[in-house]
Structure formats: structure tokens, C-alpha cells
């Protein structure tokens, strides 16, 4: 019985895949290809297993990006930020906050809410405060090593040959919010504005 159920699911999956593929292809066949300057920017789809999201509560999600080919911290963290923005909009939210999950003894600068040096400024986002947590494996290592931006340690890949990093994973815990964003919240990110900034910059890691 269990085996036949698996077979049914597998068959459904096999049938559904080409259908889904077909559903996506006709658009380009029907619509003439626009000149290059009018092509809307688009981020390529991630390969299976690269991106995942976990629902912690109705408004809270844990997003993870995994890969084997380390490019740069900035590129991979920006891709995660773009996924967070897209998820927020898909959930009909307008902005999200990053839940840093600092722990006692953590180092690194605290996000600043409204210091006088910034003359009471409000922001749609501050990339300086997009600080997700990493874990990685070096070639031949059996176990993951965690690197936190609040550890006070230099970024794990700084000064290393990227090829020595065999696996990496970067994750962020976010809360999706609706309505006008609180521009004074240093951990607040307006989804639409962030997506605009990043869409031409990011691609999924491998």
C-alpha cells in the first residue's frame, strides 16, 4: 500500500513537471522578445536545495541559503536579503525586521536607532545592519562551524582561498510586517525598496 502511494506520487510528479514547464514557456513564445533595454530584470531560479524557508509563526520565518561554491560574503548575503524581500511581498507584507538573536557575550556594534550623529534620519533599509549568521565546512571537515557577525571574530572566509570552503549556509530570522514601515527601526527593511536595489545584483549561489 505504502509502495503504491509512493508510485502514485512519483507519477503525479512526473506528469506535473512538464505541465508546469509548459505553463511557463508559452509566454515567451507568444510575446515577441522585447529589445534588450526593455527586458525586465529577473533573478534566475535557485537550484533545488539552495534556498529554504521555515515558518516559525504566521509572521515569522527562518530563511536559509546553502551552497558549495563560495563566491563572496556580500553576494551571498545580498541574495538572502533579496529572498527575504520577495517573501515579505508574497506574504502581502510591506516590510520586515531582522531578528538578530544576539546572545550574552556577543560583540560587534549594536544597531543604532536614532543617534544624534544621523540627525534623526529615517531609512527604508540599512544594508550595514543586514547581518545574517553563517555556518560552514572546510574541505575534509566532518562538522559544521558556526560564524556569527556578533562574535567579534573576523569573517571566516577572510584571507582564505574560497576553494577550501566545501559547504556554507547563511540564515536569517525575519518577522514580516504590514503598513507603513518604521523608518527609525535600524533592523527594518522595506521589502519593495530592498527588492528594487538588489534585483539587478543577485543570483543564487551554487
Amino acid at each position, binding site marked *: 500500500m505504502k509502495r503504491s502511494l509512493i508510485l502514485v506520487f512519483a507519477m503525479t510528479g512526473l506528469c506535473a513537471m512538464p505541465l508546469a514547464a509548459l505553463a511557463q514557456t508559452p509566454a515567451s513564445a507568444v510575446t515577441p522578445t522585447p529589445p534588450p*533595454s*526593455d*527586458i*525586465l*530584470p529577473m533573478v534566475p531560479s535557485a537550484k533545488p536545495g539552495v534556498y529554504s524557508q521555515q515558518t516559525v509563526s504566521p509572521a515569522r520565518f527562518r530563511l536559509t541559503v546553502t551552497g558549495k561554491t563560495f563566491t563572496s560574503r*556580500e553576494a551571498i548575503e545580498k541574495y538572502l536579503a533579496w529572498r527575504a524581500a520577495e517573501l515579505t511581498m508574497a506574504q*502581502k507584507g510591506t516590510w520586515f525586521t531582522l531578528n538578530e538573536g544576539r546572545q550574552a557575550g556577543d560583540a560587534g556594534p549594536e544597531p543604532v536607532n536614532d543617534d*544624534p550623529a*544621523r*540627525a*534623526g*534620519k*529615517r*531609512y*527604508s*533599509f*540599512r*544594508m550595514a545592519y543586514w547581518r545574517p549568521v553563517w555556518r560552514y565546512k572546510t574541505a575534509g571537515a566532518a562538522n559544521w562551524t558556526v560564524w556569527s557577525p556578533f562574535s567579534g571574530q573576523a569573517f571566516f572566509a577572510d584571507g582564505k582561498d574560497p576553494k577550501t570552503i566545501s559547504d556554507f549556509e547563511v540564515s536569517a530570522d525575519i518577522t514580516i510586517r504590514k503598513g*507603513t*514601515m518604521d*523608518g527609525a527601526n535600524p533592523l527594518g527593511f*522595506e521589502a*519593495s*525598496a530592498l527588492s*528594487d*536595489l538588489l*534585483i*539587478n*545584483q543577485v543570483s543564487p549561489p551554487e
Partner: protein
Amino acid sequence: MISHTRFLLCSVAAASLTAMVQPASAAPWQRGFVVATYEYAFRYGGRAGFERAGDIEPGSDCLHGSSVHFANDKNTEAALKQPFRSKYEIEAISRPPGLEQVKAPVLTRFHIWNRAITYRAWKRGIETYVNPWAAEDPGQPEVTGKIATGFNLDGNSNTGGFVSEDGERGIDNALYRAWGCDAPWRGNGNATLHLRANDKMQGGLYTMVIRVSGNKDPMNDDNAIVEIGYSPDKITKNARGDVAADYSYRIVKSEQYTKLKARVRNGVVETEQVEELHAPRIAWFYDHAGDADFRKGKIRLEIAPDGNAKGLIGGYRDWRKLYTENTFAQDGGQQGIREHEDGVALYYALKRNADGMADSKTGEKMGISSTYRITAMPAYVVDSAKPLGVTIIQAEEKRKDAFLAIREATIKSTKTRIVQGVPPGTTQGAFPALERNIQDLPSKEFFLKVLDRPHYPGEAMEIEGERFNLKSGDELPAKPEPSKPAASDKQVRNETASAKVADAR
């Protein structure tokens, strides 16, 4: 008989008394006004004598006072921390080496800063004011006070977040929240761009008129009409230099014009809320003048016993248009440095605070609630025997075309996220001003090499009436004028045919 006579006498007396109390109760009436000042209704919260080091006029509206973008080399340095710039490049732009050796150091630094801040995107070559979304948000001080001038535009007292001066809740004036601390728009009657815009309007750039009419009492009429629109007749000033009372102005009805139903109570005129309210918009140059195009707009006008009026015009405005009107009157960098504002920060503040005109497909808020404040002098607003249009000044049309082109490019870029280039004819990126003013700076080669600038097809281009070599920035001889320029089909001139509007700058 006696009683009849007494009755007649009483009736006559009563009728006379009634006539004395309400002399014009059923007579058609009309009042006209010419707008003397026209500004964003930003409530200033500064307090005389209250100072705090580093802040410009801190107040109940803006906790840290007005914006100070590009006010000094440190502020400019902070705005230039794009990943593609080296530490040396940032330092050199902020404090150009050899500046003390040039004839005009302030101007030279101004143009270097202008060109540098015009390119702050995530990679080199993307012009920032046309593509503000491609740069990080530099941050903008916003209004944190809870009192605002304006209307409850959405009819919901739980939204908007402001209370009016007389206690009405739910005031929607998100433009005030977004831009109310921006230096050129904040002040107690002395905001620099308010002064500039009013000076140019009073000097003849454009004229706005209002006509209120009804059939009962001008002070109390529940079936009145308000007309607002553009006049081709320039504002007349009196010997003291103030806007003069009781002059005649024709009203244009084909564009920038709206007719609204209204109610007058004790001299306060309150119009209905209409889907589209067209009227002239705030401008200080010919190129960016035009239709304010409020959505869900309304007007309130208080007529004083001396016949003068003050009031508010409110509604939702397309925030992308607002951004372009403010940024591209000249060029974004120039206005930013001169006025201590940052167009990119203003763009993000508008987008973040947008609260109306939701797109039916995406739900994106395309509009921002806003209120404009006016004062007006009594005038005769008259209809023209011939159809009228908005005045067209041929000499300024090329510059207007350039404004419209850069506005279109900007709106397209912000909606599609496709990077757009700078259309020709503008002065974006201080081109060719930098090339012309940097000649005696010892480090000129460095700046001309390292700083991006707009690039255009062809070899020569006309900017503000002068032709330039696109590679060197050198001025070229003017092209011979065509013998007869094409006349506009809706031209209504108040000035001599050869007049330019150079004085309007």
C-alpha cells in the same frame, strides 16, 4: 382700517428689517482671487532662541532640525561610500587636492561634488537621480511631531497619524512627514525653495486664480461653486512690491482647471472632494511648471473681512512626479549641494510614506497625501471671449522637453527597475560645467578620469541654449537660427515676442 394700516406699517417695517439683515440673501454673487503665495503646508515647529549644537532649528516638528546633506566635506564623504570607490577617491572628492590654487575653489569643488554624488549606485556608471532605487538609502530626517495642517482625505480618523491644529484627527499629510524636515522646504516663512517658488510665481512664471460664486450670501451659501485654474496674465504688484488687489485675470479652462461644488459657512469655503483636481503646481522654473494633478482633491478657503483669503489645497499626488519636479528643475546634484537636500533620500522617504492611489494590480501606493497652503488677494477673475491655453515660451521649450524626457526616464526606471540613461539636454552630473571649471586644478586629470558622467550619442549637444563638444565639454559656435520658428497653436503671450524668461531663474 386702523388695524389694517398698522398691519401694513408693521409689514413694511419687518420687510425692511429683514432686508437690512440679509441684504444679498438671494442675489448671485462672485468673488475672485489671485494666489499670492503657494507652498507645501508644512507646519514649522522650531522655537525662537532654542538651539542645539550641530542641529539647524530643532523643533517639535523635526527633533534634530532641518536636513544637512552635503553641508560640509564630512557629510559629503559619508554619502560617497560606495563599494566601487577607493578610500583615496572618497578623500580626494571630499577635499580636492590643489583646490587652493584655482581661481574659483568653491565653484570647482561644487562641480566635483555634483558629479560624484550623481553616481552613487551599486556599481559605476548608473546615474543616481534617474535611477534612485539603484543606490542605498542615505536616510532622511522625518517629521516626528503629531500636529499637521491638512485634510482627512480618506475619511478615516484612525489613519494619517496627524491631528490638525484645531483638533481634527486622521489628518493625511504624508508628504509633510516625508519632506517636512528637508532644509529648503522647512522654515517659518523663510524656507528657501518656498521663497524661490513664490518669488518666481509673483515675478511672472505662472499665475493661479480662484473664483467662488453662488446665489445666496457670500458668507453663507450651501450651493456655491469654486473654480481654480491658471491665468495667462502675470501677477500685478503694487508700489510696495506686494501682490496688488483688484486687478483682472483671465482664467484658462482647458487645462490646469477644476470646477468644484462648495459650501460657504461664516466665510469659510469648503469644496467637495473630487477624483481629480487640476491646478498649477509649485514651480520655480518654466521647465517643471505644469499641472499639480491632485487625486481625491479638495479646497478650503477662508475669506477675511478685508477680502483677502487664505486656504489649503489637498489631495494625493503621484509621488514619482513630485520627486522629479523637485529634482530636475535644474539637476539633482546641484540642487542637493545648494539646498542641503539629497534627492535619493527624498525618493526613499516618498516611497516609504506613500499612502494613497493604490495600484489595482500590484497594490503599490502610487500617491502620497499632501496639502498646499495658499494666500490670495482679491481680484477679478474673468472668462475670456477667446479660448485660452497655458502660455508657451518658445525659448524655454527645449529645456522643458529635456525635463519631460528625464521625468519619463525616471518614472520608467523606478517602475521597471531597468536602469535608464540620462536624456540629452539636461545638466545632470555637472556636464559640461565641470570640464569648463576644472581647467586650473592640478588634479583635474584624476577627477575627469575617475568620475562618471552622462554620455550621449553624437559629437555635440545643446544644453540650456549653448552647444558643447560632448567629449571635451568645450563650447561650440551656435547653430544659425531657423528663419521662422514654428508657432504654438495655443500660444497666449503677455510679453514681447523676443522676451526670454531668463529673469525667471
